[in-house]
């Protein structure tokens, strides 16, 4: 069973690890980035084609999740984005969706729903 990779961008390592564990249990492989900049650098350097979707924390040190979305759009990438926010106000939600997020989750969320959302984007080759 192979599937596309999910990229997790979260500066909180414990939180990122928990998403990774969840995705692993659901059969997805994932990569963790602790900042928007490190993801962007990696992405621009390698232009990986195996990324199924991006799970992106809104609140990040330096470049925020929303800013990363905008940056990705500027580079014309079409990677689906699932936004995760500690405090998903209407404003954040609208801004996230306007910048192309498929879904916005507010912490803490039901992990199984996140898996459903990821599954939508990462078509399994099985």
């Amino acid at each position, binding site marked *: 069973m192979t599937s596309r990779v999910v990229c997790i961008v979260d*500066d*909180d390592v*414990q*939180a990122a*690890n*928990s*998403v990774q*564990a*969840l995705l*692993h*249990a*659901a059969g997805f492989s994932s990569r963790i980035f602790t900042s928007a900049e490190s993801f962007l650098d990696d992405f621009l350097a390698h232009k990986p084609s195996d990324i199924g979707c991006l799970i992106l924390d809104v*609140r990040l*040190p*330096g470049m925020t999740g929303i800013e990363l979305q905008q940056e990705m759009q500027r580079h014309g990438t079409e990677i689906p984005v699932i936004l*995760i926010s*500690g*405090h998903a106000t209407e404003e954040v939600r609208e801004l996230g969706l306007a910048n192309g997020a498929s879904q916005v989750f507010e*912490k*803490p*969320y*039901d*992990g*199984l729903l*996140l*898996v459903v959302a990821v599954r939508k984007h990462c078509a399994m080759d099985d």
Partner: protein
Amino acid sequence: MAILVLISSLVVQLAAAYSSLRLIKVTGKKRAWLCITFAFVLMAARRATTLYRAALDLQEVDIYAESIAIAISLLLMMGLLLIGPIIHEISRADEVAALNLELRAAQSTLEEQVHARTAKLESVNQQLQKSIHDRERMAEKSRIQQEQLAHHSRLVTMGELLAGIAHELNQPLSAVSNHAAACQLQLNHGGRSELLASGLQEISAAAIRAGTIIKTLRGFASKSAQTRTSIDLSRVVEKSIKLLDADIRSHSVHVDMNLDSELAPVNANEIQMQQVIINLVKNAVDALREQSGDRRVRVTTSMADGFARVSVVDNGPGIDVEAENPNALLDAFHTTKSDGMGIGLAVCRSIVEEHRGRIWYKDNPNQQGAAFYFSIPPLKAECL
């Protein structure tokens, strides 16, 4: 012979008159003694007349009668001489009695005066005690008010940090939720028990992390009892930065901690020390809010001049010392923030001063940003 008797009689009578006259002086009874003196003088005059007539042989002198007269006069004079000391004693007794009376009066006046003075002293003493009591009560009241203000200020700070702390709590909570969902998926697919175990372990760790955040928060919000313990300010800095972590991260500020692991312990109220550090660091973070580019706060602990010192230095716009009086920065209601109350630093100062320490502002030695310092005497120095 007759002439001799008459002269003796005359002398005796004049002496008696003189004795009688002297008694006036002793007794002060002028009229009584004048009468007696006068009687003696009259008798002396009669003797003188008799003497004169006898001398001219005009009169026969009855020697027998004149001798008896001398004896009578002598006895009278002796009586007068003897009565003098008696009267003197009587009058002295009177004087003593009078003196005694005076003494008693003086004594009672003195006693009254002593009473009055004692009463006055007692009243002054009472006033003094009342004033001491009042002062103690005022000091206690002021201490309680200061504590209440510090507590209130902590609550305000906590309110400001709350959004960040909620975010901070959400991290372990969503980790719990994610790991629980992962375990559920593992179970559905007949997952291996070691994977389940590791998931459960993660859940437990995340729950403990959430609990720690709440515990720190609860400690910070609590009305601090006046308990001071031996604390290491370097450790308090670490704890304080943890509470501020979300705020620091959301403002993309980098906090450098340069902590002296050999810092002498201080006798202090940990929560209040946390409050001072959080206030200073939060001010630094707030000052960097508008800054583009590198945002840095350096928190340093060190021993300086025998005191444990904490410094908080930022690379923000700094404080315009020309426009702002640096000494007024730490006063109540003095603020350089548009939304500030000017309470934070004043509370910091009262806390630090209550710990016999010092808090001050200095231009950032690197010519940029603000630098706040505070120092607390070490435990050992305080014991001396």
